[in-house]
């Protein structure tokens, strides 16, 4: 049985196309210092540091965690890097949590980052593979046919993705840290934006961002002494499955369903739409909102899009289960950090710390990340109460 652990501090940089004023080291340190300040702690209070980022090819810096030890105060302390592609921000937080839940450490710092301005992720994700034609066109090229299959199966209206794109940017306009600030965005503007990977339009895709996110996770005793309300970790789960096998369910992956079932069981959640107050879910392309609504059990299969169209996931429409009030990945995407931002934003919600994008009275929140060919999943449920 795991010991109780809680988030006692979160820290983020603001997200933008290019942070020219800092190196990668400066970027991660900024997020880490913000998290320490939020927790009213210093570097000496940290027992271990858990770092995560997406593939090294994205910035061309091999094993960047080695050079970041200084910036993250790791000298003389255990340090570990986690790597699970796009889900890495989430799984890094889970590895950090497990170091506290196991009793190994009392208080750990966890940091995830990406500096996309120093990289070309499209190039890094489009390398030729042996025994295949060289036609892999980035993440959008990979996910577009899966989205097309979802549209066919669900018979959803064509503008569901457009609605998500608008909704998440309106949410992002409430979050001063969000990269895209588009308070006046319209359905028409999204619909008329350039078709990148049919059926994915430019404004239905995430931006390329620089940024980092950090959290301090502490054991029960220390969390109770924390100056600000802790976000108690009520469930943690990771699952993975192979990218390719015959008969694989790519639209509604088994690993995602299993991961959700596991984390809900730990947190005592029977009906996620009813029992959770808010969810921060990894939606890098707009249609992944209805797809994950189904995969995560918020709606029956084939009906996720109805929640989106009813406004159930929208703060501005007073929805009963807001998804991505921070603006989500569609508003900010420092790839390696994007999963941790979901986890940290879930924590901020139950700590009552989410400012203009706060879901009023939020007590229980889901943080979610996925990566690779929708094959790595990481989730946690955090609450204002111990459970």
């Amino acid at each position, binding site marked *: 049985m795991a010991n109780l652990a809680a988030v006692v501090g979160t820290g983020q940089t603001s997200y933008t196309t290019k942070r*020219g*004023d800092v190196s990668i080291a400066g970027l991660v340190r900024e997020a880490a210092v913000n998290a320490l300040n939020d927790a009213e702690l210093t570097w000496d209070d940290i027992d271990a540091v858990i770092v995560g980022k997406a593939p090294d090819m994205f910035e*061309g810096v091999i094993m960047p965690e080695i050079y970041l030890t200084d910036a993250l105060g790791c000298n003389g302390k255990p340090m570990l890097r986690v790597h699970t592609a796009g889900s890495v921000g989430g799984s890094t937080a889970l590895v950090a949590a497990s170091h506290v839940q196991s009793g190994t450490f009392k208080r750990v710092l966890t940091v995830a980052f990406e500096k996309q301005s*120093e990289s*070309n992720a*499209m*190039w890094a994700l*489009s*390398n*030729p593979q*042996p*025994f*295949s*034609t*060289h*036609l*892999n*066109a980035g993440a*959008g*090229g990979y996910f*577009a*046919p*899966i989205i*097309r*299959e979802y549209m*066919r199966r669900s018979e959803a209206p064509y503008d569901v993705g457009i609605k998500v794109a608008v909704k998440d940017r309106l949410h992002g306009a409430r979050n001063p840290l969000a990269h895209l600030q588009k308070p006046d965005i319209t359905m028409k503007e999204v619909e008329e934006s*350039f*078709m*990148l*990977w*049919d*059926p*994915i339009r430019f404004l239905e895709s995430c931006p390329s961002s620089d940024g980092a996110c950090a959290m301090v996770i502490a054991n029960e005793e220390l969390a109770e002494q924390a100056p600000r309300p802790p976000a108690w970790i009520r469930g943690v789960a990771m699952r993975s499955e*192979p990218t*390719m*096998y*015959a*008969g*694989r369910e790519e639209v509604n992956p088994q690993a995602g369903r299993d991961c959700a079932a596991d984390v809900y069981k730990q947190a005592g959640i029977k009906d996620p739409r009813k029992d959770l107050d808010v969810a921060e879910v990894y939606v890098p392309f707009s249609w992944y909102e209805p797809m994950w609504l189904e995969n995560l059990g918020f709606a029956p299969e084939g009906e996720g899009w109805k929640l989106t169209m009813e406004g159930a996931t929208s703060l501005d429409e007073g929805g009963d289960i807001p998804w991505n009030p921070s603006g989500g990945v569609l508003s900010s995407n420092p790839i390696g950090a994007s999963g941790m931002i979901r986890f940290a934003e879930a924590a901020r919600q139950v700590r009552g710390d989410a400012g203009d994008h706060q879901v009023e009275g939020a007590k229980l929140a889901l943080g979610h990340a996925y990566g690779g060919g929708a094959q790595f999943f990481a989730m946690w449920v955090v609450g204002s109460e111990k459970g």
Partner: protein
Amino acid sequence: MSEQTTENTDVITGIEAPIYLKYNFTAGAAPARFLTQVKEGVLTGQRCPQCAQVYVPPRGSCAACGVPTEEEVVLSDKATVQSFTIVSIPIPGNSIEPPFVVANLVPDGANISFIHLMSECDNADVHIGQRVQGVWKPQEEWGYSMDNIRYFKPLDEPDVPVEKIGKIPVEGWEG
């Protein structure tokens, strides 16, 4: 900014320091067999002894069952469109001109798709269930590569219903 910055210091945010990597791909037993055959103009897959699904290109095992695949199956170069995207931006390192159709294709006799280019078609007419066939390069250009097939073009055959995609025998689709 650092206080040490002076008028004589340039603002340097990056320098070009290219590093070139050349990978020598060592094909395992199953990919080596596949590449040997594709060099002869033949697509082959391997059948899982447990679930009977046929993999192309074969990797020597079934990722679903976790068992080795050994039985070779000769496939057709006729295939069915499982899904697709129309890409409107260039692929880094590839001179292909957008827009172009990248389709997930299941060749007859196999149970899993690979991606390949579609051409000789109106992009707006491409659809799930569509029948296509490989257009091969001249034989003297064949190598250990799926690029031996230049692209796939539509066939004048009835569409395959969605529930049958990935279940067409190597003899083909009668409609």
